[in-house]
């Protein structure tokens, strides 16, 4: 069961998206269909609710079937493919539309797809080209992810800092996303003080964001503050219904010596991974196959 978020910046933004979506209810045409699909995708990303992401993925596909020649929908298709961990499909989509594939927005998606595929040198090359043509926070952040994967944390953090510098007060959720990534990076380096600082800023910048809260739970776990970590994971899991959070919750209970709760949450995670795989999703395939 998924619970609603308490009043927060994120909840406010989700409500605004709901209202905008409602205002587009009767609108026809490719542009309105694109707007609706985009808003659904954004809603899913911000809420973290897995069912919303699946619904948005379907909505993008439906809109594209109705308006196959509309390039913005092809862009959204490739973007949603990446959300659903289908980098091959995203690349195929971008290859099929050279105009889109060679635009800065398309190249940015291509770089992210290559990163998901572990083709880091190509991803880096692609994103560097994007940044030469049109420096955007997304391209800086994507390149930072590549550098992180290559083990160059210092360069990654500098790129995240550049991404931050491109963001304005009208993009606070993106800012929180970048800060949370920097928090992850610092935590992975063992610098928990910096990690807490980044996560604190991310929380203050855009309160109620599941992505930041799950990182907070992870850092609590790293510090051995297991009761707090369990509570934090449970809260985010309850709101989002994500199986990876169920797995993390099970692991925290296991660390805490609560065998029964650990087994319960691990079983839930396994079942949900299997369910996802049965749906044909690649989203949690690596979890499913690892078990």
């Amino acid at each position, binding site marked *: 069961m998924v619970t609603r978020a308490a009043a927060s910046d994120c909840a406010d933004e989700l409500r605004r998206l709901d209202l905008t979506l409602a205002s587009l209810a009767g609108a026809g045409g*490719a542009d309105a269909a694109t*707007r609706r699909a*985009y808003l659904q995708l954004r809603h899913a990303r911000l809420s973290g609710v897995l069912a919303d992401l699946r619904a948005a993925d379907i909505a993008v596909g439906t809109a594209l079937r109705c308006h196959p020649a509309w390039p913005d929908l092809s862009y959204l298709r490739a973007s949603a493919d990446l959300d659903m961990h289908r980098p091959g499909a995203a690349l195929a989509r971008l290859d099929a539309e050279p105009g889109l594939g060679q635009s800065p927005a398309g190249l940015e998606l291509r770089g992210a797809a290559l990163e998901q595929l572990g083709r880091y040198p190509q991803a880096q090359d692609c994103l560097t080209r994007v940044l030469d043509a049109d420096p955007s926070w997304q391209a800086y952040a994507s390149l930072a992810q590549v550098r992180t994967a290559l083990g160059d944390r210092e360069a990654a953090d500098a790129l995240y800092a550049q991404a931050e*510098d491109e963001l304005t*007060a009208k993009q606070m959720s993106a*800012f929180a996303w970048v800060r949370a990534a920097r928090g992850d990076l610092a935590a992975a380096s063992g610098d928990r003080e910096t990690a807490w600082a980044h996560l604190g*800023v991310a929380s203050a910048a855009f309160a109620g964001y599941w992505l930041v809260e799950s990182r907070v739970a992870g850092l609590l776990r790293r510090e051995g503050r297991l009761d707090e970590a369990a509570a934090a994971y449970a809260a985010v899991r309850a709101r989002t219904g994500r199986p990876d959070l169920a797995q993390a919750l099970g692991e925290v209970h296991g660390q805490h010596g609560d065998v029964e709760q650990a087994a319960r949450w691990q079983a839930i995670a396994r079942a949900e991974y299997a369910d996802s795989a049965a749906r044909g999703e690649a989203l949690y395939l690596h979890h499913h196959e690892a078990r």
Partner: protein
Amino acid sequence: MADHNDPNAVNSIFSDIDPSAADVYDMFGFPGPDDSEGDRVVVALTFASVPETGVFDTDMLYRLRMFAHPRAAVTRDEPHDLDTLRQYLDGVRGTYFGAESAMEIRVTVDERGQATVTFHDFPGGSFMATVPVGEVTTIKAPGGLAIDAFIGGRDDAFFNDLPGFFRSINYAPQFYHVPSTRPDLRELPIPKTLLELEGNDLFNYNPAVPDLGWGVKLDLPPGPYTWAGDSFKKDAAGNYRFVYDGRDARAGQNVNAIILEMPLQVITRRPEADRIVDIWGESWVRKASHKVPAIPDHPIWHEHPLAFLGPDYRDRQLDGYKLVDTVGQPFADAGLSERENNRQLGANNFWLAPHFIKRLAHLGWGFGPSVTALGLRCSFDTDNAPVSVHRVYHSTIEAFPRTRKVIFQRLAMPDNSWDVHNLGIPLRRPFEIFVPNVCALDMDTTGTWPFGRRLEDQVANRFLSLFLDMESAGADGSRYHVETLSDQALWDAAPIDPKTSPNPLKNDKEFLPHFPYLAEPW
């Protein structure tokens, strides 16, 4: 649309971009009407009324920049002596290098509706004031000089047939939903034109969708997005159809504005010599990293206001913002810079000059044949092309010969009333007007464009008049001037329908004869 809806980052024509308080519209500058105690300078920066009229976005910082210097010209009666030469050289230096040391006024507004106005590097020193939004107030400058200030909502002083202009340049986002991933589908590769082109179905007036471009948009149909015709469209009576209909697209709409009227003495210690005041405006939006609630509830300036006037603080303040939009000359951005985000340079637009030449040549091939088809003399060399041509230049050297007269001709005025003191001030030329991109107010004139910009100036028609040949005389000895296209008699005699000035000749509301001059909001 002197500067409405650009750059693209704030271009709310696109359906995925909401109107933004960062979209600066117009920069007005003219001498105040009461000079009994010395010259006074009126400046007005207008921008989108977001979140609403009279309510300001607290994440914004607006910057008005100005610099006073002598005129970079020798007037009719000035003696040919060393002083005149020195003053001229001072004028040249001020014109091209003044931006480097310009004074500035920064305006931010807080959640309580209080505007903080800081004046930096003025001759009397730096100073600041807090004024309420929506009220006419007086700010005391050092030395007791009074500055009138109004920061709030007003009627938009710009009056323009915006869809007509976009029709003339085949700018699809005004009429169609254009995929945001296809920037190449904004200005479509159809000849620019003032007269409808036969078969230009995407942009010709469509009686089945009379409000297309006036709030109604369709999805962009599949291509082709080019034009294969060879003539202007004519009706049964043999009349061309104007792409304009003269309606005011900004009628009934508001802006938020920063309006100041100050003694010239506040801006310069040499008001008798520094007769040119260069003015331009900028919008900056707070960076995300500076919005995180780390700011103390009681800002330090309550206790240490002087700390906020030093250069260190200023730079730190600006570090917390990103420049979004600039405005100096009307149409410098929308007409010549094509709204590109990376062309928001403010005064220092020197590197854009080669682009301007290529752009003017591109526009000239479109507008020039429209001008000659109406029987008017054109300043652009069209090789007598019978219809508009879509031609893009990649070489300035290739483009320049066509535009020579457009760029170099002196823009004639309808009479001499603008030269208030009858000094014989030289007429301005387009290359002087658009580079640098400032509103260069001449305090010995009425401030009418291009000697400043008055509220009542129909700048869209005046911009189009660049393409009229103002150097040669007609058979009757008459000559064109910047107001020619606003002359109803011209349209009455022209083979065209509708018989209207391209743009409306008056604002939808009367301007006020006194500060703050812009009309009350709707």
